[in-house]
């Protein structure tokens, strides 16, 4: 099979990727993922199924032990960690400006724009410790967006937030995605969150992680709070939860 098998519009392609850590843990085995440009894809699986590892491999923060990794957005990506991961000694503006500073890019309007997008325009000079958990996560998202990345990688970004804040950030993230039309790969262990956000859900088996099945969520965007309470949403959630249950049972 020729390596140029990926069809046009593919931004990320992982083929038969395995990852074993030095201590012998096998996080991924025979993992395949293909993401098209502009898509919103979620990786869903139980804790420790290697979904974060897969995301770090896509980002180039970790190397696959085996397999083929292609990422045409390499160098043009943003990453949002599970924690806000802000520099506590720097104010919000300086935190958001970091990727530009590191690349020695002077883009005076970029920081303000990124903060405005996440609704924090008035907090440029606050310090991270003065903000709530949800606001810190917004800063983290603004920092990921400030370089106008082609690909946004999010590693369970809202897992530590309360439900009200999470729902709000879900809505804001969808609005941002619709506005910017960038590719998003979103890692989560929440069935409900993945259904609400994604066009396509990749359900993973427990460690060693591989793709159990993929489920498309063909509900139209924009999706709002009404979608969360619709029968259609409940149906998708049941379908995805069933798949996740089977994926977990198969390995156990």
């Amino acid at each position: 099979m020729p390596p140029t098998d990926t069809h046009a519009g593919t931004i990320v392609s992982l083929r038969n990727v395995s990852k074993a850590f030095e201590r012998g843990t096998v996080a991924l085995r025979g993992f395949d993922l293909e993401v098209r440009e502009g898509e919103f894809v979620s990786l869903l699986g139980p804790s420790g199924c290697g979904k974060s590892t897969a995301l770090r491999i896509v980002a180039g923060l970790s190397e696959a032990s085996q397999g083929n990794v292609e990422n045409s957005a390499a160098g043009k990506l943003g990453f949002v960690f599970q924690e806000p991961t802000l520099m506590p000694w720097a104010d919000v503006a300086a935190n958001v400006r970091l990727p530009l500073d590191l690349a020695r890019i002077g883009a005076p309007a970029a920081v303000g724009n990124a903060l405005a997008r996440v609704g924090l325009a008035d907090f440029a000079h606050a310090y991270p410790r003065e903000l709530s958990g949800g606001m810190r996560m917004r800063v983290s998202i603004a920092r990921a967006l400030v370089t106008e990345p082609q690909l946004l990688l999010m590693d369970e970004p809202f897992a530590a937030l309360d439900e009200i804040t999470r729902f709000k950030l879900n809505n804001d993230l969808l609005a941002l995605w619709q506005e910017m039309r960038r590719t998003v790969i979103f890692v989560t262990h929440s069935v409900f969150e993945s259904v609400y956000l994604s066009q396509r859900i990749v359900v993973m088996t427990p460690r060693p992680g591989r793709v159990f099945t993929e489920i498309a969520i063909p509900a139209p965007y924009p999706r709002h709070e009404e979608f969360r309470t619709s029968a259609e949403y409940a149906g998708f959630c049941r379908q995805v939860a069933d798949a996740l249950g089977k994926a977990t049972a198969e390995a156990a």
Partner: protein
Amino acid sequence: MNEGAMRILFPGLVLVLVVAIWHAAVALLAIPPYVLPGPGLVLSTLIADGGLLWRSLLVTLTITFEGFMLAAVGGIVLAVAFNRWKAFEYSFYPYAVILQVTPVVAIAPLLLIYLPQPLAVLACAWIVAFFPVLANATLGLNSVDHNLLALFELYKASRWQVLFRLKLPAALPQMLAGVRIAGGLSLIGAVVAEIAAGSAGAGSGLAYRIAESGYRLNIPRMFAALLLLSAAGVAIFFVLSALSHLLLRRWHESEITRER
């Protein structure tokens, strides 16, 4: 009464009480000044010998300051080097520990043989002061948030960017803790070396004055010099605490006072 007032008033009361008891004991028991001078005599000696003691204080403080600066800068530079080259850390860290655990009182006489006295005193001040800076800065540099490191890697930060924009600021609280300890220790190191050199008689620092006054049974002057040394130590502590507060007040948990 609020907490701030109590923090000043209560130790002040203790001071007044102790000085009063001291004075009463000396007066009532008619203790001769060559055994224990009263607080009034110590104070008048401090004023009478002011010029001499002040010059000696400056000598000791100058060496303390030099030793402290060398320790602070050297400790941090060495910690950065250790963090950067693990082989370097493995090679030299044990010897830094050995240097630290060997009592400086025991090293001072040897240093006084090999080095001219001011240099030997400086070396002692440095030896005791640099280790806490090194140890704390090493800890700080090694405890940088792994995700922040990953973020810097993601944006292809250079080594210098990682050092100056991430590692040094992240380690600042620990480095300042080390520096604060080093301030007091460099004074101790300088004093120990001066005392060790005492009988050689070449020095003119405050600790040398204490040793000299001891030989002459000038007990009031010993007390006056001791008082000055304590005051110097307290001043060093306050200056370094203020510096630490100034640098950390906006962001570090240790400097935030919470309302309850």
